[in-house]
């Protein structure tokens, strides 16, 4: 008998709980913007006044590039713990949708960050950017990253508007060959490994100082030989016709 009284009380409690739930229900927009709230806590769409300017912008980057990176974080080819946990149980289809969403977003670029490099270092960087170093089999950065360094659809990211700390960490990751980024040998990691410490330092200072202008270039602008060189990265072209 005691049992049934308890049961009734329970039912009552359960119902009153359910009622409060109904009376104050929240409207959740059925949008991707709402679904990626956990991402935009770090990757805001306006330039971020964060404690450490380490979070890279992702808005407006080529969709294929974002798709590849997200799968890399999920599958342990690129390491950043907070994102690995978020992406752990996401399907490729969902990741592709998220990549497209961020790719289509408009971004307000931060003001250029003066580099203060001496002229000889500026020369060194500009040479790498515009002509590369054939002796070391380094093509000019702008042949792959686009004339205006704003990237090429759909796999090659732009190089402007990225924070210095982030750039330095990426080059470090590739060069150490560690889990940060360098685990899989691809066209970019091979190039990064050939750069000297001085070049990396200067590049990571020079790039954030450039004013951002221009658009991501169309895929046809990329030299077929370079497409060949980056075959690993371009493997899922079918999604981006």
């Amino acid at each position, binding site marked *: 008998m005691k049992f049934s009284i308890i049961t009734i009380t329970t039912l009552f409690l*359960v119902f009153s709980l359910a009622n409060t*739930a109904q009376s104050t229900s929240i409207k959740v927009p059925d949008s991707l913007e*709402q679904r990626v709230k956990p991402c935009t806590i770090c990757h805001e769409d306006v330039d971020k006044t964060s404690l450490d300017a380490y979070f890279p912008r992702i808005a407006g980057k080529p969709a294929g590039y974002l798709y590849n990176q997200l799968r890399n974080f*999920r599958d342990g080819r690129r390491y950043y713990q907070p994102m690995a946990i978020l992406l752990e149980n996401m399907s490729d289809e969902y990741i592709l949708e998220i990549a497209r969403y961020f790719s289509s977003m408009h971004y307000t670029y931060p003001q250029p960050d003066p580099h203060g490099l001496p002229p000889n270092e500026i020369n060194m960087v500009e040479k790498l950017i515009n002509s590369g170093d054939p002796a070391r089999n380094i093509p000019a950065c702008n042949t792959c990253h686009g004339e205006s360094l704003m990237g090429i659809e759909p796999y090659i990211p732009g190089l402007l508007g990225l924070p210095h700390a982030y750039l330095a960490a990426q080059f470090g990751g590739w060069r150490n060959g560690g889990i940060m980024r360098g685990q899989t040998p691809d066209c970019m990691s091979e190039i990064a490994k050939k750069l000297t410490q001085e070049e990396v330092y200067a590049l990571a200072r020079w790039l954030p100082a450039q004013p951002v202008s221009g658009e991501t270039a169309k895929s046809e602008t990329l030299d077929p030989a370079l497409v060949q060189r980056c075959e690993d990265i371009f493997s899922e072209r079918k999604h981006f016709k």
Partner: protein
Amino acid sequence: MKRLFLRFIGSRQTFLFIACSLLLTLLTTNLALADFTEPQSQQGEYLALAGNCKGCHTTLGGKPYAGGRKLQTPFGEFVTPNITPDIETGIGQWSKEDFWQAMHHGKAKDGRYLYPVFPYIEYTKVTRQDSDKIFDYLRSLPPVAQANPPHKIDPPYDNQFLLFLWRTWYFEEGVYKPDSSKSEEWNRGAYLVQGLGHCTACHTSRNVWGASQDGELQGGEIMGTFWYAPSLISPLEAGMGDWPIETVVELLSTGITNHAVTSGPMATIVRESLQHLSAADMRAMAVYLQSIGKKEIDIKKTRKIPPMPEAVRQYLAKGELIYEKHCQDCHGESGQGVSNIYPPLAGNRSVTLTSPLNTIRSVLYGGYPPSTAGNKRPYGMPPYQHIIHDTEIAQVVSYIRNAWGNLGSLVNQFDVDDSRGYEY
């Protein structure tokens, strides 16, 4: 076997037990998949999914079934072997019999005792037919030449003799024995939950030897993972005795339902394994799980709210402010959540578990429920480890464990720090 037998001796059910044994051979055939029109390897693929073999035997982003995945345990680091039919590095030289030895007896081809990280304690319940089908499927895979690094097991656990002793003590070998007093559906569910589904591998309290103390889905902290797998029996934890069958099915096959959500290792099990099971098998599992869940809620225990000292009240008030600022937008001002989108925190058993581990982890790391056919584009929860300090995480966790009629222990910043897993 010994335990099972002892339980029956001297009871009124002795007769039933004998009858049971006689019926056994007949019933075992019913456990196997009803549909024999599919080729054996296709059924094997399905069974391998039910056992989540691929989940463990594939490293992140690696070739399916080629192994290499590292599993951290308090006994050391285990590396899953390659189980593709490669001659050199896989199980290309194994026979059906060798495979059965592994699944059923926990022995490798060379006679070595396998470590129970490979859940053969559960797989021993799998029938010979099903084991053969899984083997045929594995044999049909493209061989992958991939040698994986050896385990790094800490002494003395690397000792085969100790493993032998452990097995004599804890390992009950034997195919699932149907209970003829129950329906065929119930038996199918029990077979899947206890066998291939290996739910007990996580949902159990483990003693120092890593042995399941009760084998009865009592819940426990999964060693080496920093996750607590709640009891599937207790109504205060994740027992589903009071849940409608449809809700159990929904949670386990989509990863989310109106008042609960799967996270961490459980989300992975749903994505890799449970979402692929047929509607009939999911239902069977739900029927079984519902039947083992205890039903009565001990109101006295949940309702005895001790008078709250002023210091505690102040501590929780701080947590409430954090909640309003960071959490309320999604989980609601009275913790009510949004059906199938944001889990409620009020009345959510996961939040008030005796162990605050999972709740602290949710707040530290955030997460998305799994993307499944039934919930393709889940909504997510942000990580707070970079946004608020450990002391504030402790306050907000204490608050949600004691707001809106919830009742749970308070936590402090040391509990928060202790909940950071070492695998990340």
